[in-house]
């Protein structure tokens, strides 16, 4: 499970429980009625809660015979979704993380095959890998996510610093910030997902290209490779050390709130985060002037690219009734219209995946991202391709353990390879 800001606070635990209870009620009631068709849309991105509701209303205005009820489960959404699926009460439309989650639910037969749909052809071709399972399309890629360095432009300007384009420049920037008494990185180590993102980002970047990553993943699946193959592991861990070494001393206790607060108030000048944290940061401090650059893991500027890929997708349940399936497809088609895209980019503020979408109206970091990716390309989100246990346990907990000084590089590599072997063996049995 990839986490956007939802994971940030444990408060969501109870909210999640009560929410799911509350929402089950209308779902079961809705069956009795014939018209209008009511769709249940299950999603996990809490930052678009209001915006998605507005989109549902706008869609219903165009299609009065269809109503969409949005249901958000921000934290551990997969836990809730799995139990819903197992009990036979699948939501009609599900927001799923690209790659592994789509593949896993498709393999279990829960998702409707969308291969022939017209709306699929409107998506940028290289986004389609993320929703492909055995040659068929099982979901609609919806937004591009990117993880990189969000930096405080005003603070950089004040200390005469430029956005780092290489690893060496990053080191120099960090040292100058340290000397000025500013924490270079607002860390987030208390929750394991951010450490996991950092490790996957660095690994993907150092592997060098999408093709190499895909080959590596295939080789891992067949048990012929290791985490360290194709990258300079010593350099990898020295960059990880540099990252940890430039956080505040108590960073092992920092969770989402502490990280956002430190960055938004200018106590720390940079944070390695997904672009999804831009909106919360701006909400905390509207005066904040933020730039977005890729994390440079290399001293060659042309090797520095964004760690960006399809983040969320929408899928239709295979067990939804005929009229509901048709209604859901209508909604997907509407998402690709001018109106749909406009609302998606402006209200939800997520980078779109449709061919003719424009990002002109979006805030600067998004434009930074899109122009950089269009010019230089990107590195794929390899963690989304890991088997679930490898990502959830070996990578997230392993990376966090490394930053806490509990796991050595050797232990990390060993447990990563071991977890992948175990997952591949389990897949082979079925």
């Amino acid at each position, binding site marked *: 499970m990839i986490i956007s800001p939802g994971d940030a606070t*444990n408060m969501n635990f109870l909210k999640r429980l009560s929410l799911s209870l509350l929402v089950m009620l209308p779902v079961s009631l809705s069956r009795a009625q014939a018209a209008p068709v009511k769709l249940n849309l299950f999603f996990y991105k809490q930052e678009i809660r209001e915006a998605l509701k507005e989109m549902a209303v706008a869609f219903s205005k165009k299609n009065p015979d269809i109503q969409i009820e949005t249901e958000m489960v921000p934290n551990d959404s*997969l836990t809730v979704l799995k139990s819903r699926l197992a009990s036979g009460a699948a939501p009609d439309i599900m927001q799923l993380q690209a790659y592994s989650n789509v593949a896993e639910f498709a393999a279990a037969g829960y998702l409707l095959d969308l291969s022939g749909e017209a709306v699929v052809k409107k998506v940028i071709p290289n986004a389609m890998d993320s929703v492909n399972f055995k040659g068929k399309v099982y979901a609609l890629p919806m937004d591009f996510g990117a993880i990189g360095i969000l930096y405080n432009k005003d603070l950089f300007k004040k200390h005469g610093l430029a956005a780092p384009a290489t690893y060496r420049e990053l080191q120099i920037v960090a040292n100058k910030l340290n000397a000025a008494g500013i924490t270079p990185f607002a860390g987030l180590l*208390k929750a*394991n997902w951010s450490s996991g993102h950092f490790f996957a980002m660095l690994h993907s970047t150092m592997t060098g290209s999408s093709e190499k990553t895909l080959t590596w993943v295939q080789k891992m699946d067949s048990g012929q490779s290791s985490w360290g193959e194709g990258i300079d592991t010593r350099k990898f861990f020295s960059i990880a*050390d540099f990252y940890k070494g430039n956080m505040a001393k108590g960073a092992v206790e920092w969770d989402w709130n502490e990280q956002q607060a430190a960055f938004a108030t200018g106590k720390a000048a940079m944070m390695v985060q997904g672009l999804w944290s831009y909106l919360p940061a701006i909400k905390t401090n509207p005066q904040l002037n933020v730039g977005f650059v890729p994390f440079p893991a290399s*001293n060659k500027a042309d090797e520095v690219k964004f760690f960006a890929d399809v983040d969320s997708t929408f899928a239709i349940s295979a067990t939804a009734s005929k009229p509901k399936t048709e209604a859901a497809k209508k909604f997907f088609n509407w998402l690709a219209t001018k109106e749909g895209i406009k609302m998606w980019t402006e209200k939800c503020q997520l980078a779109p995946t449709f061919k003719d979408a424009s990002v002109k109206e979006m805030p600067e970091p998004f434009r930074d991202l899109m122009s950089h990716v269009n010019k230089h390309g990107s590195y794929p989100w390899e963690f989304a391709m890991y088997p679930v*246990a490898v990502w959830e346990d070996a990578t997230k907990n392993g990376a966090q353990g490394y930053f*806490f000084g509990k796991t050595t590089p050797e232990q990390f590599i060993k447990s990563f390879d071991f977890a992948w072997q175990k997952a591949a063996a389990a897949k082979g049995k079925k």
Partner: protein
Amino acid sequence: MFRSKKTKALTFAVFLAPALLCYSLFFVYPLIQGVRYSFTDWNGIVPEVPISFDKAEFEERILPRLAKTDQAALIRVYALDAEGVYKRENLDPKTMAGLKSIFNSIGITPIKFIGLDNYREMFNSTLDPRFLPSFATKKVFDKKEALPAQISAPHSKGLLKSRLGSEERMLLDSVYSVDGGGRRLQEEYREVTLFNLLYGYSSLDFDEIEAELEQLKQMAAEHRSEQQAFARIDGIKTLAAQNAEDREAVRSILSRYYKVFCTKELLDQYLVENDYRFGVIGFTLFFTLFNVILANLLALVLALILDQKLRMSSLLRSIFFLPNILSLVIVAFVWSFIFNRILPSLTGIEVWLGSSRLAPYLVVFVAVWQGCGYLMIIYLAGLQSIPRNLREASSIDGASPLKRFVHVTLPLMAPAITICLFWSMANSLKTFDIVFALVGNSSYVTDTTPIVLDIYFDAFNRNRFGYATAKAIFLCGIIVFLTGIQLYFMKKRETQL
């Protein structure tokens, strides 16, 4: 009172039979199911009632093997669609259960039985290294970090002096000056200082320098002598291209870097303390032991105090009970705030919940604080049910307050003690929410994972339903075993007294 057979039968039918039915429906049946799942490798995702079948498979391989009524049940649910696939829609739980047993009868299931493998894996520390306790050394300093600005007096005395060789002592003395009982890092060996000095020489080829620094770090890890390192520094090509003055200066910077690397290795290696990791089982038992003892002791003391005729006693009772009615999430929120913000600024110790040394105790502390009010109420009730004349009689007989407590109050409170111990032990063994809310995602690295949290992660993060169920069954066994022993002895004592 005389009761006819008829009344007895009626009582059974009205009260006991429904209770027994519910008991078997909501406890016995799930338990049996649980035991069954614990022998499987189910991942929790693949449905037990398949969503679609190929036409040929459905018509040729499945239908012929079923009885007429079962066939009809299947055909009611699965419909052939335009693409030649038999598909089902969302089902209600009853139909689902019916189909499940039909499919099970002909061996169609995503669930594979793997015998005792799950139970074996639990107790195999290579397969699941976090479950059992293990011994390890804990580092005080990690070489990933910058050298600490200060070494505290006990660390520099106790740990360093005993094990260092003379060369290592000399290295330490040159990098750290003695400052009172502890030591202080010399300004010229701060990495930030060195870095800024080095990057001041813009004519250097930094690609080469950085590669050389990595080499030096490696040499330090291999404990090469300083001479070897200096020889390596002298061989750097970009140094030869500098003028004599700069060359000397950079050489001095690099040699100081080497000393810093060596010092880091030294501290990383010697600043350690022998330690063990609780593991999941260890922490669960640790938490149970301390939570049971401390919460009950504190509750008993509070109850004894509040049983006195104090003016404010009812107000005080409410105050001590208050933490119990707060939602655990609020409790965790409040305490996280205290541990993250208030205590660091008061004490100067920066890391509380993030430290594996402190976190287990802090978790117990919060649990005791939160739970003892409830126990206190039970003890108070126990105290107040003791007839006053017994205590008065013993005081007339000349018993001291202590003797009165040990020989009169305590024995008469035995039922309350039994209940409290039983309740707090069973609850501590299956604690989840307080730890989840307090340390949540860092519970593995801070060694504070109770078994229920581990089960939760296994089932929902790692998609291992079968394995998680096996752990849950194991936990159920532990709870029955421990509370059984405890009840047996307590009951025995109760009757003796």
